[in-house]
């Protein structure tokens, strides 16, 4: 049909999907070396820690890897032999606490995201309203959220509600702010383009404004996911009788350093897994944002 087809175009074709270009060279040998070095490093830290706990510093303050391991085992499994441990992992106790924290986190995330998206979009599109309320929102936004926790406990009790509200508040502001900006900073050129194609108001919204704002919503949610966990755990530490935050604070209250470390290890594993999942989801959803070089 066209002559343009017969000519091999002098363009570099980027690879499929092309997620993080920076990571690619580290695959293979270099990656293996990195991994091994990391393992050795962590091992060395553990050895030094163990040595220090036995010879230099009172384990009351720093516990020791062996003790933390024992506490972890006690927390995560029931039984003494490795076989029993394997069968009984994770223990109902651990599941109980984890589930509680997850529940707060996920509900906080859902409510916070919903509210943040709706309010952000409305205020972003309704310019006058947005300008009117913006300073107020900034004022609350700049308040350390932790300071709100006692108020929420007062209002919503020491049950799960206050934790959900606290987590949702943190999420709300992150998502709200992103959505607000996203709904305001819609590329006018894109709007003009579809208007010339004959788009009506609704089509301009659905084809350009909403998707454009949604990419900002995603960015906000991406940011908010780890914070929703922070919110849940912090609220638990203030007043609760279950959850990961409770495990940390109750161990600390009993001067059980090993128990604190064990709960921290669990928390670390949880947050690393969550962040990994979010990163995966992001690279799928926001593939178009990857800039090829």
């Amino acid at each position: 049909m066209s002559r343009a087809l017969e000519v091999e175009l002098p363009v570099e074709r980027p690879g499929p999907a092309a997620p993080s270009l920076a990571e690619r060279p580290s695959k293979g040998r270099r990656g293996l070396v990195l991994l091994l070095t990391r393992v050795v490093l962590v091992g060395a830290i553990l050895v030094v820690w163990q040595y220090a706990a036995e010879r230099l510093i009172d384990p009351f303050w720093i516990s020791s890897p062996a003790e933390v391991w024992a506490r972890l085992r006690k927390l995560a499994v029931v039984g003494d032999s490795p076989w029993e441990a394997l069968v009984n992992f994770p223990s109902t106790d651990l599941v109980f606490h984890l589930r509680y924290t997850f529940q707060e986190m996920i509900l906080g995330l859902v409510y916070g995201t919903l509210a943040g998206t709706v309010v952000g979009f409305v205020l972003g599109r309704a310019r006058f309203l947005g300008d009117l309320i913006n300073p107020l929102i900034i004022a609350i936004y700049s308040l350390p959220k932790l300071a709100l926790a006692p108020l929420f406990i007062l209002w919503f009790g020491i049950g799960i509600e206050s934790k959900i509200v606290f987590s949702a508040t943190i999420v709300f502001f992150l998502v709200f702010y992103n959505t607000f900006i996203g709904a305001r900073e819609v590329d006018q050129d894109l709007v003009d383009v579809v208007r010339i194609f004959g788009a009506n108001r609704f089509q301009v919204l659905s084809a350009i404004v909403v998707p454009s704002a949604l990419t900002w919503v995603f960015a906000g949610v991406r940011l908010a996911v780890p914070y929703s966990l922070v919110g849940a755990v912090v609220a638990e530490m203030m007043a609760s009788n279950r959850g990961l935050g409770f495990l940390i604070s109750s161990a600390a209250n009993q001067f059980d350093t090993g128990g604190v470390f064990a709960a921290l290890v669990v928390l670390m594993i949880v947050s690393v897994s969550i962040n990994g999942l979010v990163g995966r989801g992001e690279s799928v959803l926001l593939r178009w944002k990857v800039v090829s070089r």
Partner: protein
Amino acid sequence: MSQVDRHLSGQASLATGAAPPARLGGAPSAGATIEFVGVAKRFWKGDTPVDAIGHVELVVRPGEFLGIVGPSGCGKSTLLNLAAGLMLPTAGEVRYQGHLVRDVNTRVGYMTQKDSLVPWRTVESNIALPLEIRGLRGRRKRELVAHYVELVGLKGFERHFPSELSGGMRKRVGLARTLVNDPETLLMDEPFGALDAQLRLLMHEETLRIWEHSRKTIIFVTHDLAEAVLLADRVVVISARPGRVKLIKDIDLPRPRDVARVRFDPRFGRLFEELWAALGEDVRRGDENR
């Protein structure tokens, strides 16, 4: 295939209904596609007025290929924005097929200087955008998109996102997206500026072929005088800011033109020189003003 051809020649167009859209008002006057009648446009940069267009009188004839050249910042793009109804003139009026342009002019296709692709849509989904707005779905949509993907030589890149393409490829997606909508009139603002010389030649050829095939009216803004002479029926020289029509020159080079050879026609050289003389003064003056 036949469906696509009919679409190309502009007969099966959905965008161009028989009745003029309600948003174009005023009494029709025949014989002109676009008229700029005493048009002036002033912008405000804070408190200082910037007169982009001083006073422009210009009639764009139906089916012609009009080239517009001028020094940078002379309001060439503003003229296109006015024709597209994206902005209104400060003084005078812009008419499209005799009707006053008061709102966005959906009868034109506008390729802006920026490629303005929708970043979260793939190549094919960007090209499909105007069809989706018209409510076209299913096989017919896919056929048209595939046809235009091929036309601009982007086969194999359908599922790439704009961020994964080179500047030249993005321009071609923009061209395909404009053409798929089959507008009566094409407004092109330096559409091939970012392309390398080879690709430009191909795109010139393609543009002329499409124009000869469909007899659309094309207004082509460029800073490249040779490109304007090469393609256009008439070339308009706009003066430095505030822009005025300085010279309108008929380009009497024979059609169909061979874009690779027409440069060596002695008439091409004469036309180029005459236009350059008019343009050159202003380019230098525009430079001093800065």
